[in-house]
């Protein structure tokens, strides 16, 4: 998967599955059958929604050759902040979480890649 830029990730027993997150965490865009609104949380990954074309040649012509992937989607911190953002206020989360320096470093690394995409001004 590491050598790919896109991966086919069709629905399993449930539409959202861990394969999408494995792909995004490794910098690969999942090509899914997900509904764009019901699974909109993956939009910032990004993920390809509602795909029905599984032909590699035609997909190669339509998809970006070098997609930028937000690998922060595999971290809990991202989703806590995302939930705060959706509700519009700071929510009360578990305060007993233990910080992991490796994960924080990875978060810094990924944020730096996306600084052009996420305009914080």
């Amino acid at each position: 998967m590491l050598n790919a830029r896109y991966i086919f990730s069709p629905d399993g027993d449930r539409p959202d599955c861990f394969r999408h997150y494995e792909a995004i965490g490794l910098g690969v865009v999942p090509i899914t059958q997900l509904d764009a609104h019901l699974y909109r949380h993956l939009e910032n990954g990004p993920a390809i929604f509602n795909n029905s074309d599984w032909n590699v040649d035609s997909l190669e012509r339509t998809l970006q050759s070098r997609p930028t992937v937000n690998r922060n989607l595999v971290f809990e911190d991202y989703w806590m902040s995302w939930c705060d953002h959706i509700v519009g206020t700071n929510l009360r989360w578990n305060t007993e979480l233990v910080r992991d320096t490796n994960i924080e470093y990875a978060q810094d690394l990924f944020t730096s890649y996306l600084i052009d995409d996420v305009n914080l001004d």
Partner: protein
Amino acid sequence: MTNKMKTKNQVHNRVTNFSLYEEERDPNESRRASNKEYDHREEDKNSIFDNNLILQKNIDRGYRRYCYNLSTRRRMFMVIGTLIGIIIFFFFNLQIPINDYIINQYNLTNEEDYQLHKQQPFRIEKRGGAFLTTHSGCRVAKWIYDAVDTQTSSECNRSDIRQLTHKNIPLIEDYDTIYVPFNKQDDFVDMVLDYLDVKVILISGQWQNVQRASDNAIQRILSSDNVVHWFCQNLKKYAGDDPHHKKISPFPYGLKELGHQGPEQFSAYKRIFFEQSLNITQVIRTLIYSLDTFQKQNLVEDTSPVGLNYLLISSLRIC
């Protein structure tokens, strides 16, 4: 001679005698007197000298005290300045994310609203979260509702003090997050929801493929004024008949951590993830990117990781 004349002569004589006395005075005596005067002067001088010494000492002490006070003042100024600096630093550090979070609450009534809302940037706040897994909901939520001993509860660490029961409902505060697994939603509605008098956020999920909650329970959740928002995994299956409801948002499923070959897969994933993250080529690329950004941006006001601290961290990581 009259009496008046006598008295005049006596006075005159006295005066002349006095002058005579002055003239006829022994020079040694005057020298002695002068010596005495000299001695007195010397004594005076000595005393003055002593006084000067004392004064000088006092001045020295005063000066020292002044200097001490001055240095104390300087120290105080330095301490106060440092404190003000720290306060300003924390104020700005905190202010920026707070500003980012001051976002008008959107009513996500339709997809267009969501498209507008998603364009709003948000900053990722570090809270000590780990990898997103299928159990992240119960890990990050403040409360866990799982009254019966089930597989889910054991995965969520049932001995946790965050275990929500009927007894500790009064401890719930506004905007607390509560994790309710799918197979406990009916119980939650009956045992907790009706007794809430604060506004809460529900998070629902479960890594197993289970039945969804009853329509009645989902309707009661959505119609409750005390439920501000409901984050739910796999909306298509578990959010009832109206997954587009404005109160509902998706919640991610996450990486596989447990279950069939889950731990092995998860540890392998983490190994590959970190190997790739710490890839030297990527780090150098990031450093070049950071240097470029450092030149472009005014990093004094920049609290993003793309700053000097980040450069240092990256350099240390390389070393």
